[in-house]
């Protein structure tokens, strides 16, 4: 079983991201269970979306304490939410940042300027979708084509086009970065 935590503020699309990722994994043939945890349950408050996936049915429903993968949509949460403590040794963390972070205990931290990429394409900050595209590079279980499929089921029209573009940018950026 693999576990993913998305660190975000309420309103930054963490639940949508977990749903799209889970949907893409289900299309690949995995079982998946995604769920949110709200702190203050207010827009802008720190929150988490969790995702588990496995080859067998998932019955465990507790919060994920340490994950194999993390995505940090809002950089300010990296320290305040102790993201490093929420990662297993030998894990990956994608962070929406222009800074470089050092790896510790096999916790690989990969920075992407997701806000910048999103702003250039959409004029707004949809960092979560950029990170989703990049996630398909660091994790071979989820294929970018199936991520696009999952997005097509979730969005329509212009919103879909922009999301597809953002995911593709994130994917290409990570591919170049990790070449």
């Amino acid at each position: 079983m693999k576990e993913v935590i998305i660190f975000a503020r309420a309103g930054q699309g963490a639940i949508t991201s977990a749903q799209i990722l889970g949907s893409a994994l289900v299309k690949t043939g995995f079982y998946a269970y995604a769920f949110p945890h709200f702190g203050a349950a207010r827009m802008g408050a720190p929150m988490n979306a969790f995702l588990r996936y496995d080859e067998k049915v998932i019955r465990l429903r507790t919060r994920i304490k340490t994950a194999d993968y993390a995505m940090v949509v809002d950089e300010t949460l990296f320290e305040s939410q102790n993201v490093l403590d929420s990662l297993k040794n030998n894990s990956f963390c994608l962070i929406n940042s222009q800074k470089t972070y050092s790896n510790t205990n096999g916790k690989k931290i990969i920075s992407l300027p997701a806000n910048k990429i999103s702003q250039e394409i959409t004029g707004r900050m949809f960092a979560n979708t950029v990170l989703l595209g990049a996630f398909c590079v660091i994790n071979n279980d989820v294929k970018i084509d199936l991520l696009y499929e999952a997005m097509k089921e979730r969005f329509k029209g212009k919103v879909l086009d922009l999301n597809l573009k953002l995911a593709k940018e994130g994917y290409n950026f990570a591919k170049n970065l990790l070449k």
Partner: protein
Amino acid sequence: MKQFLEGATSIAKTVALCRPGVIAAYPITPQTHIVEELSAIVANGELKAEMVNVESEHSAASCILGAVATGVRAFSSTSSQGLLLMAEVVFNIAGLRLPVVMCCVNRAVSAPINIWNDQQDIMTLRDAGVVLFFAESIQEACDLHIQAFKLAEDPAIMLPVIINIDGFVLSHGYEAVEFPSQEMVDKFLPPYNPPFKLDPQNPLTFGALVGPEWYLETRYAIHKTMLDEVPNKIKQIAEEFTKMFGRTSYGLYEKYKLDDAENIFVSFGSVAGPIKDVVDSLRERNEKVGLLRIITYRPFPQEIGDILLKAKKIIVLEKDISLGATGALYSDVITSLYISAHRNKVSCLPKILGYVCGLGGRDISLEEIEDLYRKEDLVESEFVGLKKENLGSFI
């Protein structure tokens, strides 16, 4: 094809397939998404129903009471304080023998205010004459809604049914869910056609005043239906459902690895999932352990005592407590065991350990569940994961 969807959305889509004519909505976390989605389905013209935005849960329950009394299938859902505000009306719904179906997204009860999951809210209506189902997964929650309408509306039953799902864990969780076609649901669930209804052409009185010479019998009638008719009908409907939709529906309870089990967990709701994980892990280490998962909590299945009588140790785990007494399930299990022992002339009862967990959304880990399995001391309602440092000024 399976869709990876939120529990609340999945339940709304399933309820829409059951074609209710009236839906009453009053928002309360964590139930809100169900009526929100249903309202979208109605607004999009996918379901022909009257969506009534009411001003309180008391009105929501009254609205569906009225709708069903006139012969229209109706639905509402609520949580926590909302359910408490409905309580008075729900007792009426049962007494009027109206087959209302509702979803209770289980949440802790104030004060202190807490929006997270436990199963305390529904225990308030335990004795109302409502059939109570508890779902373990989102798929099961959906499947139980379809069965609930069929059960409630059966002329031999005519009682309300509430499907309980754990707040956030299932309501806000996403799982791959399979939806039946409209044709299949229509075939399984014919239109609601009650023998008696409010109709100006044929005036009848519902819920008249009765004196001491009649009331006792009305209560007995509900009790008798609960004991004699409901369990068999649930089994029959579950079998029919399994055959028709190709997904196992267990009906009254699920026996998980019980065949040779000496130690048996008893629980309900989504916490049964992690308990199954613990059972599997203990089985790998040759421990003879299983889980008896209660799906139908009211009526309480009479076989429970017989099933548990052969166990050495029983561990009851539940997310509710009758403050000042014990957990509700714990007392039901003991009663059932005692009756069964008496009937079977068995003088030695298994050891029973009662635990209360997860109140107000507190997580319970696999390690904690396994620790409970290792314990031998008799406890009535021990709180799992109690933080002594938090008790401070309370005690």
